[in-house]
């Protein structure tokens, strides 16, 4: 209390309050956004093919699924959780979505509903394991990951689901006003979840639970129900992502999404989410997802082998988190 202390929230302070809040959030994303811009400019100069509408749309569509599932992961990470089951669940959703189209003649929309339902069920399972059985999220979702993958293989007999009608490609390959449909969905999902997290009670509780679960409980938040809700909503997005992935390749792939969890956790963390809970924003996660996608895209454009890509992605993960931590420490000590 020694230095700065003002009477709370005077009218004069409103704008600067608003700014401070924005700025303090933005720190987390600043490093990632800077890296994204630098990489973008570098690639523009390095490859004549980079800055073309086609390529940018491709990047958008390629990143859509990762971005959507990373959005789901971010919500879970904010609650101090983690979801290792995203890859299995996305595969399960995509495969079942494809099967109901092929075997039961469902429309693509009905199939999407099925995929989302599968994701929601898996999310519900994760949520109940965490809240009712009180299994830590890492373990609960590790189990779901294993069980989910097993189920995908059992259901499909380990064979891809092929022979789908052309309409199945709508979500993944369709366009709307020349923009990939998958990109439109991603934008809607990201904006929607960002809005949910920052402007609604649901979002407020999500941060509160990640910050101090007991405090949230004692404040009257029904933490069991609410935490389960976060996992279910995450599952819904994972199911949607799995369906888009299946649609993009016009088939249900039982092998889809192996080690996808690491990619999406990396995206969230690069974008400023903290594995200790209570922190993270969707805009950062989206930036993180595109940063990784851009590295991959750029590597192919510049004909850099996959092996160097892995090294580069690793170094970017280190660098992003290092600089973020560094800036946070500085900001905090300026606090």
């Amino acid at each position, binding site marked *: 209390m020694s230095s700065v202390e003002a009477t709370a929230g005077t009218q004069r302070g409103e704008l600067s309050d608003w700014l401070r809040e924005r700025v303090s959030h933005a720190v987390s994303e600043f490093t990632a956004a800077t890296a994204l811009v630098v990489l973008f400019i570098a690639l523009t100069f390095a*490859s004549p*093919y*980079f800055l*073309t509408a*086609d*390529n940018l749309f*491709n990047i958008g569509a*390629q990143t859509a*699924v990762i971005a959507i599932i990373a959005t789901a992961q971010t919500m879970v990470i904010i609650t101090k959780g983690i979801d290792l089951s995203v890859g299995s669940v996305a595969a399960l959703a995509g495969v079942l979505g494809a099967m109901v189209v092929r075997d039961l003649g469902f429309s693509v929309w009905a199939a999407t509903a099925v995929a989302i339902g599968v994701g929601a069920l898996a999310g519900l399972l994760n949520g109940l394991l965490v809240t009712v059985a009180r299994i830590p999220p890492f373990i609960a979702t590790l189990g779901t990951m294993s069980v989910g*993958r097993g189920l995908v*293989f059992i259901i499909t*007999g*380990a*064979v*891809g689901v*092929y*022979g789908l009608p052309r309409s199945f490609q709508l979500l993944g*390959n369709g366009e709307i006003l020349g923009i990939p449909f998958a990109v439109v969905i991603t934008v809607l999902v990201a904006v929607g979840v960002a809005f949910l997290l920052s402007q609604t009670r649901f979002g407020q509780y999500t941060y509160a639970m990640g910050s101090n679960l007991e405090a949230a409980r004692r404040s009257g938040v029904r933490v069991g129900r609410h935490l389960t809700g976060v996992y279910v909503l995450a599952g819904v997005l994972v199911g949607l992502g799995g369906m888009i*992935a299946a649609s*993009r*390749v*016009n*088939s249900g*792939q*039982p*092998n*889809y999404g*192996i080690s996808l969890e690491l990619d999406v956790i990396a995206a969230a963390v690069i974008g400023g989410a903290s594995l200790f809970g209570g922190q993270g924003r969707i805009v950062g996660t989206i930036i993180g997802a595109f940063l990784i996608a851009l590295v*991959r*895209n750029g590597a*192919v*454009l*510049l*004909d850099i*082998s*996959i*092996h160097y890509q892995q090294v580069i992605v690793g170094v970017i993960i280190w660098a992003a988190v290092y600089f973020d931590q560094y800036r946070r420490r500085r900001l905090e000590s300026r606090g």
Partner: protein
Amino acid sequence: GGVEVRDGGGDGATKDASGPLKLAVVPKAVGADYWNTVKAGAECAAQRAGDVTVQWDGVTAETDVEGQVNLIQNFVTKKVDGIVYAATDSSALAPATDKALAANIPVAMIDSGTSPQPSNVPLYATDNRASAVEAAKLLATELGPGNHEVALVEFQPGSQTNTERVDGFKAGLAQYPNLKLVGQQPSKSDVNEARRVTENILTANPKLAGIFAANEPSVLGAAQAIQAAGKSGKVVIIGWDAAPDEIAGVRSGQISALVVQNPFKMGYFGVDKMVKHLRDKAPLASADTGVTFVTKENIDSAEIKAVLEPSCANPPVQ
């Protein structure tokens, strides 16, 4: 000293097995159309022989070499009557084969053998490398004279089959100085990934004229990327394997040619010869199961049909 490597040598003598037989059939990995055709062949042979059960089990990824070593070992423990399997790694699985032989369990290899390959262990397979050289030739023929840019979509760098096909393709390509390899990216046997890398290759090389995709998911992803880019028919695809969607691609002209092995025959031979060996003491001898190049022209010929749509009623095993 007291430490020594366990010797895998055995006399190879087989037990008398006139009664019911239990055979383990192990693919490189479960989860692809190709291996399911192998399975169909194996089960067909078992059914025709009568009183033979096939236990089909495998690891989930071709890269899980150690997992397969353990699996074979567990089958040895279980004392199955014979083991028919495809080695994920020629060198790594050699000791596993030795241990089976030492336990008097005969072994037959399908699709991929071991190195060294014991003389009493047959191999029913096609030559991946030679077939990949052929694939390069097909690509060159399809593209015709003049300079062309081509790309390669491999699947799992570091796995042996991948290495053989990539080596073969590059060796074949070396005979055509007018073809320039401008891109090489892996799909990790994931269709989504195959599509993604192909899209990026197409962006980086707008003049790309041909692609060789080295396994089923790679072919499917590459075809989809090319279709999405509106370049169907303009970019020649030479693929591998014969999943239904690949066949459809050949019919529609998206895919120029497919290198098709005869997985049904591999599975069939593996089990059939093993049963004859166990029951009639017939010696085991290797055989080439052959490779077919499927194009739009020959796709409806009876011979190709038998390979593409194998059925136990009329097995393609002559």
